[in-house]
């Protein structure tokens, strides 16, 4: 007998950045009539401006589609989109866990990349049926046959029948939709058993409060039920259930095999963490679903109000972001240089950039961010352990027995030609090569152990630059390891600016000190007096640069009454001043805080 479940397909699309995932999703939406072509902004699912601009998907969007297949039946497709960045691996894995299959989009001009592989492994871990698709076949540089072989060689799945698609032009999308019906299994699960549902996303809605996106594995959930989060241990009353297609559409209940949203009286996203299992409080399932873990911050930085920005405005904005992002956390801190601000924790560098950009764009705030840092484990001479998120909090060297730093396992996939320069890069970043794997004749995967601290500064930029964009990186936390680390301080006009302090490996302290001094020299404007910039370890000065003094343009001829020009000049000066931070008598532009940590080809690294 037919079950409603036979006509449901739950799947994700996985792909490397730029391989065309979002464009393909758009075409599917269009073909299934969800979004009229004329109403479409480009890449419908990426609904944050930032995502659209960067061409990456950060936050999951799930959509229920209806597709009339060639067999005459109407199918429900639950398209669970996944974020496309290494920072969000855990979210990806939970999204995948909600599916039976995954459409693997591979750019037929580029081939398989490290991150594609990372996500495929995640999908295989969840026992998903993988449906490969070769995209961008409209481009002259497409070589689908080779890429097909590559998929078979590297990933080890059959790609013989992989549809050839041009998401941009819409060709091959019909074949893909049929393949989804045929290849991806229908969900299973008994709607009459106790409720067991997986939270794979949650977000904050101004009207509904926290909205949970969930996959029901067994049982049924409806309005009025009292649900329990099995890991968090909290209990909430369900106020609404429905599907997103797109836009919230209420329905009576969600049954086993279905995907939809659940609202309850939930105030914070952290009360509905991704990966948690929902059950009914009165009729609990025995075991929660496997794989739950709390998102852990890997990278920290300080965020401070810039210029005349108010502390409370920044605090309000951070709170709002936190409500919507369980992986982001913050607490107040103070800096001698920057005053009152916040120490913020992120999943990774991209996550950090996203939050900072959202502060600036969505909340129109001006903030200064300090150098990103990992968490160091400090073992003091008295045996106590400290976790240090802010380099300036490092205890006196005399109190420290030793310091440990986080080390990650990094998989770097790249064309053969660049292996030498990337090995050199990894070597310089204290990487230990574990293995080099030839995926094909021309593609290599390097496996390294690298201290995370080396990865977060500018590793990714350097990798991209040295491989002309072809290299890709995936990493995961491995362990804490003792290391010879020192605190590098920067002094401006003989005074330490705590916001510039960083922890570096002893062997790199000199090079880093020099490079930071040089970069600061470029970004700090000339003053009326000479400004020495010094890098030091403890009392010892290891690098020095000087910003030359200059005379401001004050006695210049204001010619022929061109006061508008003078006014513009003054406005520029004023704008510049607003973006400056006064340290003693030295003004530092806010770009300085990030500029010094950016990758620069010329710095010889």
């Amino acid at each position: 007998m037919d079950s409603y479940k036979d006509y449901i397909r739950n799947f994700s699309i996985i792909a490397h950045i730029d391989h065309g995932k979002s464009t393909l999703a758009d075409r599917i939406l269009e073909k299934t009539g969800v979004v009229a072509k004329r109403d479409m902004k480009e890449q419908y699912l990426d609904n944050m401006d930032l995502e659209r601009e960067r061409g990456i998907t950060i936050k999951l969007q799930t959509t229920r589609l209806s597709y009339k297949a060639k067999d005459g039946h109407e199918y429900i497709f639950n398209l669970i989109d996944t974020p496309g960045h290494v920072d969000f691996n855990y979210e990806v894995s939970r999204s995948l866990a909600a599916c039976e299959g995954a459409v693997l989009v591979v750019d037929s001009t580029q081939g398989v990349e490290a991150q594609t592989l990372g996500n495929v492994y995640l999908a295989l871990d969840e026992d998903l049926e993988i449906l490969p698709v070769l995209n961008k076949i409209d481009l002259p540089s497409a070589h689908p046959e080779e890429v097909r072989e590559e998929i078979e060689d590297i990933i080890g799945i059959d790609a013989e029948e992989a549809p050839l698609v041009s998401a941009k032009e819409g060709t091959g999308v019909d074949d893909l939709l049929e393949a989804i019906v045929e290849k991806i299994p229908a969900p299973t699960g008994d709607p009459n058993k106790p409720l067991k549902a997986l939270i794979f996303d949650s977000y904050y809605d101004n009207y509904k409060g926290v909205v949970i996106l969930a996959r029901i594995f067994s049982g049924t959930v409806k309005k009025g039920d009292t649900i329990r989060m099995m890991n968090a241990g909290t209990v909430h009353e369900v106020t609404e259930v429905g599907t997103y297609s797109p836009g919230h559409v209420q329905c009576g209940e969600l049954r086993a095999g279905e995907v939809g949203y659940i609202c309850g009286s939930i105030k914070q996203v952290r009360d509905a963490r991704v990966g948690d299992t929902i059950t009914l409080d009165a009729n609990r399932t025995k075991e929660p679903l496997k794989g739950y873990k709390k998102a852990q911050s890997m990278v920290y930085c300080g965020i401070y109000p810039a210029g005349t920005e108010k502390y409370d405005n920044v605090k309000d904005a951070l709170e709002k972001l936190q409500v919507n992002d369980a992986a982001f956390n913050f607490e107040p801190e103070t800096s001698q240089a920057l005053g009152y601000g916040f120490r913020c924790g992120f999943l990774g560098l991209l996550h950090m950039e996203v939050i900072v950009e959202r502060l600036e764009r969505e909340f129109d705030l001006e903030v200064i961010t300090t150098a990103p840092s990992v968490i160091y484990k400090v073992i003091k001479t008295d045996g106590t352990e400290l976790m240090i998120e802010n380099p300036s909090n490092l205890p006196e060297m005399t109190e420290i027995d030793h310091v440990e730093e986080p080390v990650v396992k990094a998989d770097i996939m790249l064309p053969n030609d660049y292996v030498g320069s990337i090995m050199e890069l990894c070597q310089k970043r204290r990487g230990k090569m574990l293995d080099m794997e030839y995926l094909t004749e021309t593609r290599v995967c390097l496996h390294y152990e690298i201290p995370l601290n080396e990865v977060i500064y500018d590793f990714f930029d350097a990798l991209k630059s040295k491989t002309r964009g072809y290299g890709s990186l995936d990493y995961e936390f491995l362990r804490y390891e003792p290391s010879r680390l020192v605190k590098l301080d920067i002094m401006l006009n003989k005074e330490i600016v705590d916001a510039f302090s960083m922890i570096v490996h002893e062997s790199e302290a000199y090079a880093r000190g020099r490079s930071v001094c040089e970069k600061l020299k470029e970004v700090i404007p000339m003053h009326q007096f000479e400004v020495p910039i010094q890098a030091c370890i403890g009392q010892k000065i290891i690098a020095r640069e000087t910003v030359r003094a200059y005379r401001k343009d004050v006695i210049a001829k204001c010619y022929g009454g061109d006061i508008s020009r003078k006014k513009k000049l003054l406005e520029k000066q004023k704008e510049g001043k607003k973006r400056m931070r006064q340290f003693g008598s030295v003004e530092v532009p806010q770009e300085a805080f990030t500029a010094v940590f950016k990758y620069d080809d010329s710095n010889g690294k």
Partner: protein
Amino acid sequence: MGKTFGLYIHIPFCERKCKYCGFLSFDDCGAEDLNAYLKALEAELSMDSRKYQGYTADTVFIGGGTPSLIAAGQISELISIIRDEFDIAEDAEISIEANPNSLTNEKLSAYMDAGINRISIGAQSLDDKVLDTLGRIHDRKCFLSAYNSARDHGFSNINIDLMSGIPGQTMEQWDNTVSEVISLKPEHVSFYSLQLEEGTPFYESYKNGELDMIDTALDTEMYHEAVRAFKDSGYEHYEISNAALPGHECRHNLKYWSLGEYLGAGLGASSYMNCVRYKNEDDIKHYCKAVNGGEIPVDKKSLHNDTEKDSMGIYCFTALRTSAGIDTRRFSELFGKPFFAAYSDKMEAIGKYMAEGSLKTDGGHIMLTENGIDVSNDIMSEFV
């Protein structure tokens, strides 16, 4: 008499461009170009005068470029056109800028006959080495002779332009130039510190490391030294870079610093009339095309209608260039509210500048101190 304004006329031609000069001027034009330009200028003046009826020009300033480059007859013609088109006040200050090497006796006579009563001579330095560095076309002797000729022709209001902070220039050279200028007793002196302007040979040389700018401390010292010398000799340091014997302040320039109205005619000239600021086209082809098509050659992108807030800011920062500073009483008259009410949010900053000795007050005026001049842009930027 109704409303008054200052009329500025731009002559964008030079015999040779100086190495530091970033102003709008050409040194590769023939007589034909020059004639064509003067014709276009004439057409513009006629359109301007129709637009601004009921105005009286109480100052006229012919600047450049090198206005003394054009022939005596052409200047007479130009002044006569101006007099035909505009109502020129009886006691109007009528200035012309001149380069020593083109200021001939014939031209001086023509100027005098036309009613020009103020000559501004671009000396820059009285030291031949320094003049050579600048790429000036004249030497010391040429300047002295031009200055004396101007006096001989009866000009009783002469300005000398000077420049300090020139690469290779020593304090001694600057001192000598300043004292020699003082001994000539010009009614007015303008003294500027050399600025590197993009697109000039100096700028390129500096960028390529072939030119060393002089030490900042020395540059500052030169400026203050000149201020002291002029003051000691009876000059009033009435504006950041101008000093004059009492009663000889440049009335045209003062309009710029006091929200006075002025109309600029000619290529790239700036105007401020009826609270609107604009510039003329600075591309000579566009300029001529507009004028010949019967249009005032305004660069549309530059048009800006000043709001009251704009005007307040501009009044404050321009007034700070003058020794009288911001006149809080005049401020209230102009804007209908007290200065301290309009800028209540700036009180802290103003107080800070006073405390550090950059600003001072005197009888309802707020002005820069001599030290404050060194950071004047910083202070002025508070008001924009």
